[in-house]
């Protein structure tokens, strides 16, 4: 409970991510754990099964760096910003080699994490009736409805070996607080054997305990707390810095040329030590452009009489 779990990014990835593991990197448009992915690339992890609802640029980078042999996901583009060409090359022309893909819908992925977190073999949902997705993915199954006619589709539990998430803040024991879009981070953390939490700020336990409803991932499922300021770039942190839309649009061109992508990885990942280096290389003008306004939440009272 009061155990100190703060580690450097290097140490956290070294200790908890091994070749061949199933690794979930969650964060739905918001709080995407880029700096953790970059450390995975630097440490040249191999043969990972990468789980992410929306692969996003982070997946294109991990795949291009040769870390990933299988992708479990529910969307294969980068929001509005265009294609992820590394993924497309792997799938469309098997260049440089094939990538195994296991595909769900968004609620299918959320439900898989939910089942995994809940110790259940499956979770039921209303999707897939009449879709071709079950033909492609035999893990989409049905069970009989014991309360009426017909059947109900179910998805199997997903239990990653490691889940890595990025959050606004945590205390040293791992109580993790987030606000804004919460994605499937709580489910993915509870579903995993190990959880690494990367944060913008490590705060005193008193800060967490002043607002316990804000704790999305409690310390009891957290194995490492890593401080990585601005480590979610080019995604965003509500109240911290905004999404780098310019970079998202650039990525289509970068990822379209394998050589340019390799050079990008060289310049922005391999040649840098950590996310502090990365933030510095981005430069003050970029950070000024991404700076956010002040929109305070207001205060509520948790007082009791005794």
């Amino acid at each position: 409970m009061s155990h100190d779990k703060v580690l450097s990014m290097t140490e956290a990835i070294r200790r908890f991510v091994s070749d061949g593991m199933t690794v979930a990197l969650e964060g739905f448009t918001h709080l995407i754990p880029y700096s953790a992915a970059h450390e995975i690339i630097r440490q040249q992890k191999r043969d990972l099964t990468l789980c992410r609802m929306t692969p996003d640029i982070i997946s294109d980078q991990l795949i291009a760096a040769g870390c990933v042999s299988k992708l479990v996901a529910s969307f294969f583009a980068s929001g509005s910003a265009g294609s992820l060409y590394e993924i497309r090359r792997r799938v469309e022309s098997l260049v440089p080699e094939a990538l195994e893909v296991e595909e769900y819908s968004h609620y299918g992925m959320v439900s898989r994490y939910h089942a995994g977190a809940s110790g259940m073999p499956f979770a039921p949902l209303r999707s897939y009736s009449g879709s071709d997705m079950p033909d492609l993915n035999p893990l989409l199954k049905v069970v009989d409805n014991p309360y009426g006619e017909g059947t109900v589709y179910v998805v199997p539990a997903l239990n990653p070996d490691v889940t890595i998430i990025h959050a606004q803040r945590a205390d040293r024991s791992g109580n993790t607080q987030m606000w804004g879009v919460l994605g499937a981070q709580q489910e993915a953390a509870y579903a995993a054997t190990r959880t690494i939490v990367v944060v913008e700020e490590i705060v005193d336990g008193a800060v967490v305990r002043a607002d316990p409803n804000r704790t999305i991932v409690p310390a009891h499922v957290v194995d490492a707390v890593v401080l990585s300021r601005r480590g979610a770039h080019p995604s965003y942190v509500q109240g911290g810095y905004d999404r780098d839309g310019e970079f998202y649009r650039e990525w289509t061109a970068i990822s379209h040329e394998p050589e340019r992508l390799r050079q990008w990885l060289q310049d922005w990942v391999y040649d840098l030590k950590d996310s502090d280096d990365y933030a510095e290389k981005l430069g003050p003008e970029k950070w000024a452009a991404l700076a956010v306004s002040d929109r305070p939440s207001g205060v509520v009272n948790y007082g009791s009489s005794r």
Partner: protein
Amino acid sequence: MGQPVAEVSGYTATSTELIVSVAARALAGKRRVFAGVGLPTLAVDLAQRTVNPDVELVYESGVCAAHPTSMPESIGDAVIVAGAEAVLSMQALFGYVLQGGHIDVGFLGAAQIDRFGSLNTSFIGDARSPRVRLPGAGGAPEIMMNAAEVFVIMRRHDHGSFPAELDFCTSPSPVRACASGLGLPHRGMGVSTVITPLGTLERPSAFAELELISVHEGVSVDEVRAATGWDLKVADDVRVTMPPSDESIRLLREEIDTVRLYLR
């Protein structure tokens, strides 16, 4: 840009602007809209500024009743979170809001649509070795299964995008779901309205087929028939689509998509 344009007139709408304007008009009277990325973002924004100021925007990121101060570039942007009335977990959003039947209109795009409004957003060619890997499912199957009705915006209208048979069905119509004999039925009617560069198609009920109800200015019914991969049903009283107002075009260009992210 953003300043009042007093004497606007004679804007010529691009195809994209026309589509978005038609979609926005179709949102009149709808309460709760599930807004996707891309042209739907523009359509709901335009609707909110014109025919339906009270429309509630719901995003699959969990944001309900967003009041964005500028155009979101993704369905989970900081600008839709700040000032929203609620940000729910994805479990609550997909489970309770969507599966619970609280969405009146879901917006979807697609690479292919069939006669009954089934959609392909996954693959062109054989799914096991595709010619083009499309973005895939996302939340589209959930929107299709659970929204009371679905609006589809198609950027193209040709045999490739309106085929006799889909290369792959990502998000099925009630017709297809019912035929499969598996899983729970749709909560709504599936696709109700399809807006294309040539015209507007509608389905009056869950098991009906798409029917051409309007052609855009300068487009003939025969052209739309010829561009469609099946024997297209045509309404007896096909109209010419009402063109977007100058104000709608102005709003789109000068206030909504000022960076021309989607109006490309």
